[in-house]
């Protein structure tokens, strides 16, 4: 492979430094007036793009029944073993015969890879754009089925952050 040798021979004006310093000062001076990148959280919030992998949700049918059939495919696909499902016979007459009675996701173990989303045959589990959720105890960061269904209600009408971008607190139903 050919080697490119770059040489730098400082000329007289470079050796004086004055011109170079003045150029440098002009660059930083010009930067003062440019647009700033800062997002003033929580007054302003970053709006994640489509396909962002944040907090999970469990989708519902139009009549309000859960789409999940507790097949445990997501649990198997999960590389972090953060999903815990307990299946049971569905109480309703029509539709799927199985449904989960327990669907816990440990949000601290989850690596937000989205494999559960890909594995799901019913498009029941999905990752949403919600990224700012927090709690005071580790136990509170395990989301249950109830919470996951509430996240669906919160996010089904488009990006949450586009609707709530004025500094209000978004109630994220993560605690059990």
């Amino acid at each position, binding site marked *: 492979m050919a080697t490119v040798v770059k040489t730098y021979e400082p000329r007289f004006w470079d050796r004086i430094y004055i011109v170079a310093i003045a150029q440098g000062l002009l660059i930083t001076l010009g930067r003062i007036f440019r647009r*700033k990148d800062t997002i003033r959280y929580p007054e302003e919030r970053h709006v994640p793009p489509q396909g962002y992998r944040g907090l999970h949700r469990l989708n519902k049918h139009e009549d309000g029944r859960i789409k999940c059939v507790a097949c445990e495919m997501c649990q198997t696909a999960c590389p972090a073993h953060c999903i815990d499902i307990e299946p049971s016979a569905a109480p309703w007459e029509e539709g799927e015969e199985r449904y989960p009675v327990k669907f816990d996701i440990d949000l601290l173990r989850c690596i937000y890879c989205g494999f559960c989303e890909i594995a799901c045959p019913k498009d029941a589990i999905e990752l949403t754009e919600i990224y700012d959720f927090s709690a005071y105890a580790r136990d509170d960061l395990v989301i249950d089925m109830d919470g996951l269904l509430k996240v669906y209600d919160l996010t089904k009408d488009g990006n949450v952050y586009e609707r709530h971008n004025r500094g209000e607190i978004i109630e994220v139903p993560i605690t059990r």
Partner: protein
Amino acid sequence: MMDTFDLLAILIKVVAVFAIILVLIIASIIAERRVAGFMQYRLGPNRVGPLGFFQPFADALKFLLKEDIIPDQVNRPLYLLAPVITMIPAFMTFAVIPFGAPLEIAGRTVALQVADLNIGVLYILALTSVGVYGLVLAGWSSGSKYPLLGGLRSSAQLISYELAMGLAIIGIIMISGGLTLTEIVAHQQATSWNFWKQPLAALIFLVAMYAETNRLPFDLTEAEQELVGGYHTEYSSFKFMMFFMSEYSNMITASAFMVCLFFGGWDIPFVDEAALGNLGVILSVLAFFAKVVGFLFLYILVRWTLPRFRYDQLMRLGWKVLLPLGLLNVFVVGLWMAVTA
């Protein structure tokens, strides 16, 4: 012969100058942080008060409430004395700076200057050198390796730039024929700004000024990355704040000194201040502080633009570039005076 009027005038001037320095310190601290933010596409601190202007007060409160830690290995008397030695000269130097045209009150003239010493220039040079002792002592008495290195660098830095700085000033003293800053300003008013007459001296002085105040690109004594803060590594709480304030105070005095020596002091170009009466005095004070603020801004601009010089690079610059250039300047000025005289 000092009567009540003179005494009162001096007291008011002392308080006013002290207040002005404090306000400028506060303003330059917040300006430093916000301008630095702007240069890096950030906003900087903007939460405390309007535009974040109360941030320095919050900082000061934090320093006051912090635990004052004195490490076991320090040399206690010197350790406690060092911040005082740094801070007092930092505030004293401004005393000889004339910051406005003489004011006329009730038929009497009040010079807008705390003390018109006949050796004003030497007074400033002497006191700033005393201030450096504070840094050296802080480094020595901390009994810790990084402060010691910082103190050593400080003393070596002192001798390598102060010679050049002195030579730059000698050129000015030669043409104005006096050591008081009032004379130097008056001479510039009568003719033109010294910057136009001796740009080389102005440049040397500017470079030396950054070394004098330990600001980037010559902040070798602090050098966070190599020396963990250098001389003030072992200082906390209020004692750290004293170093911090004296750094900014020194910046203000150095800017004011620069303005007096090379940029006409309180002179407004193409305006006859004396003809305007006391309005001219107010304008002259504003002009003076506008120039000082301009240099303070340059300090900030330079700090966030240029990387730090290496230790040997500073030595080389001081001894092999600035010193010969300073001598050349004195020689040329002398020659020019001999020819025109």
